[in-house]
């Protein structure tokens, strides 16, 4: 990247110095302003923006926009909360809840889970109220030596796939199928140990929830 210049932006009434060209989500997080996010990857030039949780209001935009896709610009004025933002985030979160095996006490990510963090920061409930819970019955894949994969806790953020492709550079896992059948899986949906996975564990570190977790020693 070229030598970075800085810009001044305003978030929730406070001014911050930001690296020009950085995506707003990361500027906010670096400065201690929390914006919910699951799928965002800082190094990715064109984020998938699929989790729909990082909505903010920016002056000059008619509707809320995703912070992970917006580059900071000189004089940008951002509000992280508004009625519309809260409604969008609340609905997206509840949809995730309706397709997620709850039960934090029995989850490997308890205490470091991004869903717990979002719920706490935004006063959202870790349960479904309006929506029916549609969690498939899928056994946990315990085939790797060091970690396990529990599909029922996956939020389809795609972070593991990105890391596997771009950091581990293996290409063992991907997001496959579509709609309610969409899932993170290997070629042919085999157990992970039966795929080209080298079990490096980089994807496990990238998982924001309890879907990929290290086995306890």
């Amino acid at each position, binding site marked *: 990247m070229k030598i970075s210049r800085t810009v001044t932006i305003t978030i929730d009434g406070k001014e911050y110095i930001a690296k020009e060209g950085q995506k707003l989500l990361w500027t906010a997080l670096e400065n201690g302003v929390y914006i919910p996010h699951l799928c965002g990857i800082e190094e990715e030039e064109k984020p998938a923006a699929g989790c729909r949780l990082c909505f903010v209001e920016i002056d000059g935009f008619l509707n809320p926009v995703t912070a992970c896709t917006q580059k900071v610009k000189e004089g940008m004025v951002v509000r992280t909360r508004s009625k519309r933002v809260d409604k969008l985030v609340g609905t997206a979160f509840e949809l995730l809840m309706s397709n997620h095996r709850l039960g934090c006490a029995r989850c490997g990510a308890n205490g470091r889970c991004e869903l717990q963090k979002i719920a706490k920061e935004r006063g959202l409930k870790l349960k479904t109220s309006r929506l029916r819970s549609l969690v498939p019955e899928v056994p946990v894949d315990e085939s790797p030596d060091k970690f396990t994969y529990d599909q029922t806790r996956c939020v389809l953020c795609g972070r593991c796939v990105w890391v596997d*492709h771009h950091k581990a550079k*293996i*290409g*063992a*896992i*991907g*997001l*496959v*199928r*579509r709609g309610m059948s969409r899932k993170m*899986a*290997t*070629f*042919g949906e085999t157990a992970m140990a039966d*795929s*080209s996975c080298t079990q490096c564990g980089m994807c496990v570190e990238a998982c924001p929830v309890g879907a990929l977790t290290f086995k306890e020693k």
Partner: protein
Amino acid sequence: MELLEGELEQIQTEVGFILRKYEPGREQLLPILQEVQGKIGYLPKEAMKMVAEAINIPEVDVYSVGTFYNQFRLNPPGKNQIKVCMGTACHLTGGHIIMDSFERRLEIDEGETTGDREFSLERVACVGCCALAPVVLVNEEVEARVRPTRVDGILLGLGKAMPVTSKHQKEEGDTIE
């Protein structure tokens, strides 16, 4: 799905032939997959692996695309093709119950083919005769207002051998649910 005798060789030849026509590159993926399916009738795993290697992308990326689009099938078309309509009208009149009945009878899931390749089962969107809902296309012939009880009849008509105890089992299954 188990490959038939000689099928692997056939796949390798056909796919190899197709791949020679394309330059390597990710953007060739869809046209290649379309051509493979056009030639072989479905996307066998072997073929997807060959495609991945030829255009130099991970196998799972080919699988991801092949399982995303409705136009691709991962299993060979059966000798008899059952297509259950899941359009709005058919869904509302119980299309999914008809699908369940076929799945139970054929012992395969939607999108699959029986081991003997006699039957394949898939869902289609509205086939244009909603007044006859729920509709099933049996080898492209319309079966109108299908009831679960009609499912056995359709399969018998296509020569499927039914277990003798089938009626009994079905009643049992029904009460459990």
